[in-house]
């Protein structure tokens, strides 16, 4: 078997899902071949891109990751994503080796049992194919696999339920502003601002990564690798002998006898097409790119696209955490910027019987240093000398960014299709129609924004700047949704395609509900669950 063209398992995508599965399989002695659309890059290059980025652009999550011609990803102002509908599904992701782990914040909130039973408990959305009790051990494995730190105090944990094992590292300290925010919302509103569990090393090295040293640059890149990102995992996997083909853009999944998957075709930067074969396949190349690939792979057996015969749900149910970021000005400082960029949050507001009427909401004080956002405003005042110093210091200390992140419901009309517009290789661009929905809008109008104003008042706000509409959180979910019924879902409880016994599609696309917390830890838990099933299936074969 030529390891460049065939393996027991072919994995498309080298983001956190693909890497997690690949490592488990290779450790079990199963051969793995990975395809990555984008380039292999190294941390020093990305960090220098950041440091040489104009100050006015340093708040951008993806500007330091210029896409290669053959592997486009959304960039500010471009039209790679063809967007339509009442709300803009304007996402950011990175098609580099390591995927979007390069610029994620590391935030790792678990789902709650209630989050997985929306239909049963509240009569909205979808239930998951299994309960929290099934997922909990996989959460623990995910926390250890990617190095998630978190509090040992049960009152500080999310959800406040017994855990089958502690976090591998203690929680990271809060910044001075976060400490003050925590005290204020507790004293005046009775709300608990708790430590984020996060994939970042706290006070110690872990998995070959150093301890966090408060570079406050998790987004767009951790300069030292204290946060989990694909680069450290790639180095480990390369040493273990996983074959990874970089700059290899998967363009077709091929089906064969019995509707089993037989091969993946990819294009190289010279626009030449190649074919790799395997016994089993994993499609894990991003919540938008995966359904795009499945739809592009339509053939005679699967006229609606791969994995889409039984349900017609591939590309539907696109979800995210629509968010509103408020700039709050106070007279006394809340210094943010020391420590990770997201380090605490109010999660209890995501739960309640109100979910039969409107979405839950999660509030967080972003912990980004503010200089990059306020310097130009301060300079516009025309002040000089000591007055200018005071203005910058006041704006950096006394303006904060408090974000509300909402849940959304699975809605088949929120749909990714193939645009007639083509990319550099001639492949279809993704087109997404999106509406956050009345459930989420009601939450903003009746619940989230009013509560935000109470929080701002408690902080001593003298000015509140409210955004129009919703921004996206870049938590792409739903496009290959999970369920027990093959007629209404794309994958089963192990993220196995209902239509193809040897094709697994794990990750955010499988999530049946979003809750309010960031999706990556659940994606990794699902990846590990899928890897267990895949491992057993390969052994049996």
């Amino acid at each position, binding site marked *: 078997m030529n390891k460049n063209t065939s393996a027991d398992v072919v994995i498309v995508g080298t983001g956190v899902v693909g890497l997690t599965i690949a490592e488990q399989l290779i450790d079990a002695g199963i051969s793995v071949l990975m395809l990555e659309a984008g380039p292999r890059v190294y941390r020093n290059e990305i*960090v220098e891109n*950041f*440091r040489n*980025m*104009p*100050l*006015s*652009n*340093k708040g951008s999550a993806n*500007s330091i990751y210029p896409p290669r011609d053959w592997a486009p990803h959304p960039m500010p102002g471009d039209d790679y994503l063809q967007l339509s509908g009442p709300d803009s599904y304007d996402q950011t992701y990175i098609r580099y080796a390591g995927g979007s782990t390069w610029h994620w914040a590391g935030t790792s909130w678990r789902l709650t049992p209630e989050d997985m039973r929306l239909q049963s408990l509240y009569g909205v959305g979808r239930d998951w194919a299994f309960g929290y009790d099934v997922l909990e051990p996989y959460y623990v494995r995910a926390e250890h696999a990617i190095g998630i730190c978190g509090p040992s105090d049960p009152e500080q944990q999310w959800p406040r339920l017994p855990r089958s094992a502690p976090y591998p590292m203690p929680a*990271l*300290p*809060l*910044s*001075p*502003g976060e*400490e*003050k925010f925590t005290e204020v919302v507790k004293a005046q509103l009775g709300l608990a601002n708790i430590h984020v569990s996060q994939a970042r090393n*706290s*006070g*110690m090295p872990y998995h070959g990564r150093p*301890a*966090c*040293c*408060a*570079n*406050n*640059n998790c987004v767009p*890149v951790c*300069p*030292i690798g204290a946060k989990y990102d694909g680069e450290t995992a790639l180095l480990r996997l390369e040493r273990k002998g996983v074959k990874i083909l970089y700059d290899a853009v998967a363009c077709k999944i091929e089906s064969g006898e019995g509707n089993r998957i037989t091969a993946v075709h990819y294009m190289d930067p010279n626009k030449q097409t190649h074919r790799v074969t395997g016994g089993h396949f994993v499609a894990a190349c991003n919540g938008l790119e995966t359904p795009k690939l499945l739809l592009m792979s339509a053939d005679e057996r699967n006229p609606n696209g791969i994995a889409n015969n039984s349900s017609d749900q591939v590309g539907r149910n696109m979800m995210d955490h629509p968010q509103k970021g408020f700039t709050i000005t106070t007279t006394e*400082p*809340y*210094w*943010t*910027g*020391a*420590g990770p960029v997201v380090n605490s949050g109010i999660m209890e507001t995501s739960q309640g019987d109100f979910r039969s009427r409107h979405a839950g909401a999660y509030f967080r004080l972003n912990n*980004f*240093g*503010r*200089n990059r956002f306020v*310097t*130009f405003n*301060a*300079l516009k005042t*025309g002040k*000089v*000398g*000591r*007055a*200018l*110093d*005071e203005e*910058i*210091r*006041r704006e*950096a*200390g*006394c303006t904060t960014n408090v974000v509300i992140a909402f849940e959304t419901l699975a809605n088949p009309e929120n749909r990714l299709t193939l645009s007639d517009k083509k990319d550099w290789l001639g492949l279809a661009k993704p087109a997404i129609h999106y509406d956050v929905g009345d459930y989420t809008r009601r939450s903003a109008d009746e619940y989230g924004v009013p509560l935000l104003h109470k929080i701002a008042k408690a902080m001593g706000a003298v000015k509140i700047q409210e955004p129009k509409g919703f921004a996206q959180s870049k938590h792409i979910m739903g496009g290959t949704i999970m369920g027990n019924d093959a007629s209404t879902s794309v994958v089963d409880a192990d993220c196995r395609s209902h239509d193809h016994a040897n094709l697994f599609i794990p990750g955010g696309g499988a999530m049946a509900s979003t809750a309010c917390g960031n999706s990556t830890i659940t994606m990794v838990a699902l990846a590990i669950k899928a890897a267990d099933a895949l491992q057993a299936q390969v052994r049996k074969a």
Partner: protein
Amino acid sequence: MSSPDSFSRRQALLGAAAAVLTAYAGPLQSSALASAGTAASGASAATSPFMSLSQMLVNHGLNAAAGAKMEAYARAQFADFADSSAAILQLAQERKATAVEDFYDDIPEGPQRKLAQWIIFAWYSGMAGAGKNDAMFTYEHALTFQVTRDVVPIPSYGFTAPNAWQQLDNAPLQPIPEF
């Protein structure tokens, strides 16, 4: 914070008189004249007219390498750079200025005021402008980060020990760090 190529206010104020004489000249002549001037005044050989001008407009120690980039940019972009620089320095001298507040309001509107504003903008932001494609002179030495350096790290440089930030207090707005 000081580094081998940093430029103190003391050096600048001592060299300011020489700089007035050299502001009209090109880089080579400036350097020669500045050296001559500093020999008499005791200021650093690193003194340049632009750094002296900058030092009058910004009340802090400045990085000479960043200043060289700014000067090259300013010479190319401000047609009246030499004349305006000399005039601003002359004004500062006349006011016996020791800080920008001593003379800034008297800088006349027009090319001189625009140049003065731009120099201050460049030192605090490290940029030629607020646009995403504007020239960048420095990130690490942009003065905005010095104003808050007691409580906020420069992003991507951080504080130096694991979890060390738990020692930080929610600092008051005053005093502002010396830099």
